[in-house]
């Protein structure tokens, strides 16, 4: 099973980039997507996004599953838009519902936006190790310390939650098996059986989560962890010329998009 946007190890340029570079690039690209409305700009951006996906080697399987999850939502959107939007020329008529050009255009735009936004965030998480990502976030937030934002605490919360996702996934699987052995059919059971199963899964999971949280807090405390004292890092992030070149490229794409939107 491929988890949405799970880190997969390859040695590509995008994998090697500094997490801060990738975070900043993501923000720039998202702004570019949200600030533009022309079809030509979207076509340009979507090509860029696909090139990025291909160079990062995540185009193969995981991303297709993510698109599949969009299909239902996209179809709902199409239905709503066809019924509600009645501007632009009439393209064709089904029964007594007329389908207008703007309804179709609007749907296509939202589709493209969703695909791009999802692809880009997947790109970030699939090419960056969770711990690098939280380290990158922490470093990027460092200037906020001046305004007494608890950057260290936030970074700690992020990295602990990321670290514990696989732990809880394993735990959940184990409890599911244990309850299956007690007669719950999680896959094909009736609805009320599944509901009972979910209770039997969630209660032990929460109990174990609180247990683990207490244990972790104690373990950190006995080793003298404190967020108020300055800490050194085992891993140090360093931007090199690839990062700067990549950022320049992203900026160039951003400017091109804006020019296509407003100047032409």
């Amino acid at each position, binding site marked *: 099973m491929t988890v949405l946007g799970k880190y997969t190890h390859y040695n590509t340029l995008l994998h090697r980039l500094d997490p801060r570079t990738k975070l900043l690039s993501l923000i720039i690209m998202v702004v570019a997507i949200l600030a533009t409305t022309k079809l030509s700009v979207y076509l340009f951006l979507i090509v860029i996004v696909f090139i990025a996906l291909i160079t990062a080697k995540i185009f193969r399987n995981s991303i297709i599953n993510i698109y599949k999850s969009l299909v239902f939502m996209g179809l709902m959107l199409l239905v709503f838009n066809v019924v509600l939007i009645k501007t632009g020329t009439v393209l064709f008529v089904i029964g007594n519902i007329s389908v207008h050009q703007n309804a179709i255009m609007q749907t296509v735009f939202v589709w493209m936006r969703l695909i791009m936004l999802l692809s880009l965030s997947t790109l970030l998480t699939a090419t960056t190790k969770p711990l690098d990502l939280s380290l990158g976030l922490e470093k990027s937030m460092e200037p906020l310390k001046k305004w007494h934002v608890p950057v260290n605490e936030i970074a700690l919360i992020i990295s602990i939650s990321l670290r514990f996702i696989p732990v809880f996934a394993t735990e959940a699987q*184990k*409890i599911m*098996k*244990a*309850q*299956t*052995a*007690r*007669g*719950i*059919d999680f*896959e*094909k059971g009736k609805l009320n*059986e599944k509901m*009972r199963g979910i*209770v*039997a899964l969630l*209660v*032990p999971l929460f*109990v*174990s989560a609180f247990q683990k949280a207490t244990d972790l807090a104690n373990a950190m405390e006995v080793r003298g962890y404190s967020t108020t004292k300055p800490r050194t890092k085992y891993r140090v992030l360093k931007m090199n010329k690839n990062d700067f070149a990549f950022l320049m490229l992203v900026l160039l794409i951003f400017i091109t998009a804006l020019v296509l939107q407003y100047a032409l």
Partner: protein
Amino acid sequence: MSISINHVSYVYDSETELKWKALDDINVAITKFKMTAIIGKTGCGKTTLMQHLNALLKPTSGEVIIDDFVLTKTSKHHTLKPLRKKVGLVFQFSESQLFEETVFKDIAFGPKNYGATDEETAIKVHQAMQLVGLDESYIHRSCFQLSGGEKRRVAIAGILALDPEILILDEPTAGLDPQGSIEMMQLLLNLKNHHNKTIIVVTHDNDLVYTYFDDVILMDQGKVIAQNNVLDFFEDNQAVVLPQVIQFKQLLLKKGVHISKYARTIKEVLEEIKNDRIR
């Protein structure tokens, strides 16, 4: 009527680069109405094998035969539930699966899932509690206020309430104190001797295996490398860590005192020495 595992292999994550063969052509027959221990190093496939016996995992190839059930890769989903009732599975640290407000409700969860009426359930819960040595006072207590050992008893009672013919336990003594471990073993012995259960236990504790079990299966790297009755297994097999009683007997032998292989506890060894003196 038997339990046999024929040419079973199991591969985790078979479609990804991480694929890993946990079981490699396993062939084992387990005798019913006995206590069988599956031993071996961490990661040797014991737990994976155990999950096949109750169809939580289906073999990638080969077949698992339990009486008239045949489990293969293509077994249909709806045929598995009766098998799960027949073969009760108690996971490692089984106390973590408790979730209901009271001990009674938690033990009743299993029988209710298999469609028992309220009356039948109540009878089964009481029987199961009696078997694991929890008295009536526990019925309305919260699962989360019990001690670790008591919680584990409740979890085991939750499986016993399904009245399985075959009971499989993964590391039932892990984390228990020596007294708790002995009580656990006596519970299993009682189930075997007085309730006609077949007991299969995954464990690391060779001392307990030597004293309480009938048969041993030794696994290594996804393969079964030895299977024998307990007495012969520990007499012949020098590769495993020997139980303390055997080490003691060997020391005695060096001093010229021969103890028969049937003495399985320190007490029995002492008895033999005493009897020899009298003679």
